């Protein structure tokens, strides 16, 4: 334990060197010029559309006629729209239902897989394979898995209509989501555990801590920064869900999530202003949730 404290002190005690004005070299200019294409593309395809969404949210715009300023009408409509309300609830259900278990499972697996054992690399690879596969490809495969006569029902001797009932379709998406996303967080937790000094565990062992105590008193607190990042990413990924809902249910049976609602509003109904208003609301919601998460996970050891 002493070692950790000493390290912490040394790291936090190392102050920043006084700022010095640095000369701009020709090499810097070349670097800047080389990065210009990427920056231009990013500005044109990401920053500009992002800012335009805020602007369009105040207009009635159908793509074919000039935008007409409507003030906050789009937001007022959404506040009273049962379909939008349901889409938000569906997104919350999918996010919590998928990512809470996925995070817990990933953490448990990371602790189990951190030991260097023969063949463990392959096991880790297996967990990561779903992450590296596209959502669409996986969703197509899971459509077969979730068929009434599919793998899931056959394996567990179930008689569940996973994709054609409002009571089960949302759970089907959650099950598939957990399977797909656990590997992503597993890799992050494994990276966090790899950076953790072995001495702290040895010290806890010497102090007589059992495995449960070592996890809760040593491992979990030291993984707090990684857990914070994972939870922020989880919420963002959850609210950005789109492809599995499109492929598996098309948004039917109470699985129309916010992104799918935005897509349909914008491109099927050509209501760009209203779709932009939803995007603005989601942006604000995600910023707020992220700030709350970072506050909850705020470091208390400094």
């Amino acid at each position: 334990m002493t070692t950790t404290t000493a390290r912490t002190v040394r790291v936090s005690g190392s102050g920043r060197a006084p700022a010095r004005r640095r000369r701009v070299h020709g090499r810097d200019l070349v670097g800047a010029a080389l990065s210009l294409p990427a920056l231009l593309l990013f500005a044109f395809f990401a920053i500009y559309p992002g800012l335009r969404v805020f602007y369009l949210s105040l207009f009635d715009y159908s793509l074919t006629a000039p935008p007409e300023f409507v003030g906050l009408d789009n937001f007022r409509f959404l506040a009273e729209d049962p379909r939008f309300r349901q889409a938000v609830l569906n997104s919350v259900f999918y996010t919590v239902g998928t990512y809470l278990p996925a995070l817990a499972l990933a953490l448990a697996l990371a602790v189990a897989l951190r030991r260097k054992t023969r063949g463990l690399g392959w096991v880790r690879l297996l967990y990561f394979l779903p992450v590296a596969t596209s959502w669409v490809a996986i969703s197509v495969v899971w459509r077969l898995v979730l068929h009434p006569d599919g793998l899931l029902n056959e394996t567990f001797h179930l008689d569940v209509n996973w994709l054609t009932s409002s009571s089960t379709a949302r759970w089907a998406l959650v099950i598939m989501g957990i399977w797909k996303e656990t590997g992503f967080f597993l890799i992050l937790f494994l990276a966090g555990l790899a950076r953790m000094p072995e001495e702290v565990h040895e010290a806890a062992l010497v102090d007589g801590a059992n495995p449960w105590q070592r996890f809760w008193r040593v491992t979990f607190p030291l993984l707090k920064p990684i857990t914070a990042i994972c939870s922020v990413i989880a919420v963002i990924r959850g609210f950005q869900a789109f492809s599995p809902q499109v492929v598996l249910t098309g948004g039917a049976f109470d699985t129309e999530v916010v992104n799918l609602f935005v897509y349909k509003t914008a491109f099927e109904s050509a209501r760009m202003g209203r779709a932009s208003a939803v995007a603005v609301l989601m942006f604000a919601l995600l910023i707020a949730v992220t700030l709350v998460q970072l506050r909850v996970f705020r470091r208390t050891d400094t």
Partner: protein
Amino acid sequence: MTTHRHRRRFMAFVLAAAVAGTGALAACGGDDEGGDGNVTLTFWTHTHPPMIELNKTLIAEYQSKNPNVKIEYQQVPNTEFATKMLTSLSTGAGPDIINMDDNALRGEYFPKRLLSPVDPAGFGKSSVAEVEAEYVPGTLDGAKDAEGKLYGVPSEFNGTAFAINTKHFKDAGLDPATPPKTWQEVIDYGKKLNAAGHKQAFNFLYLHSGWYNQWFQTLANQTGGSILSADGKTAALNSPGSKKALELWVELARTSGIADPKTSSRDATAPYQDLASGTQSMAIVYPWSMDQIKESNPETYKDLAVVPLPQADATAQPVSRVYGYFWAVNAASKRKAEAWKFIAYLASARDRWLTDVSFVQPVKGWDTSAAAKQIPFIDVIAQAYANGRYDQVGPHWNEVQDTIHKAVDQAVFDGKPVDQVLNEANEAVQRSIGS
């Protein structure tokens, strides 16, 4: 040495700037129209294999007769066809020539002024009236806007009929020569088919919102229901006729037990899989459905018979549903005259559309032509046209179709009361058309 290094840095800077410039230019794109008299036309359709084949053949013929014209033909998967086409045309892009159904044309394309009116010169006529005079009266209504202006000619005109598997009927001791005339008879026959081991006696196709909407309107036509009021300004899903239509759907699909809708194939890229594979005994069909089954499952096709669409009330005048796909020209096209000439060529191959793809071009006398006489069941299809009517369409129709989709799912799959789901749907439709 220092000068050399500076020069090298300068050259590197210039190179980097050039790369940046190229990237920016690449993002802008350009117009590929040449000034040498050559014309390139772009043409998009949905995916229906027999149709694609004939389109390719006709394109090759047209290009060989018109060496200065090149047709770039693209097929868009059915699941993304509507969205991709509407978005591309709305942004001033998209193909020169589109092939689209009348629901989308009247619901989205005409109100948004995305299409160019028919150019009679392309057909070698001096007026649109002359073009119209070739077609059976009323069949072009699906391509006319509220003012009656014509925007396209039909690539296919579909009437609704009913297919029965005669082998299944014989298995159940039923006479294929006396097919069901009412939906109640469909249920009665279905129970006998079930008893003979054919568990999927009758199913609707639950593919996407457009399909849900077409089934609903097929039934509502017969029960006196509608989605909107006659003036199109208010939702009418809670009317007695609309309620009867959904109750009939629920009875056919759920309460009668003659099939399990949950096991129905839901792959929009290949409709009618269950009927084609011989799993399903009865289905609502269109002329093209039969042609598709003939190609994919010729063995099952031999056992199928096409009969008139069952009715809700045997004593009432039969009512059917018609719809059409139309060739039309993008309002943003810079090659409209050439596009209409090509469309006129496609439309002139009416006999081949009928014999090769079972697409009816509803020109006067089509049903007595030599090509029509080669098509089995054509008398049934012709009868369906005679008592058919186009779907009701209103503003923001995609949202309305989504609402119908949800209401049917709730009533048929979740078992919610018809009254409740239709009242909720009625409010949703009113919100869509009123905002």
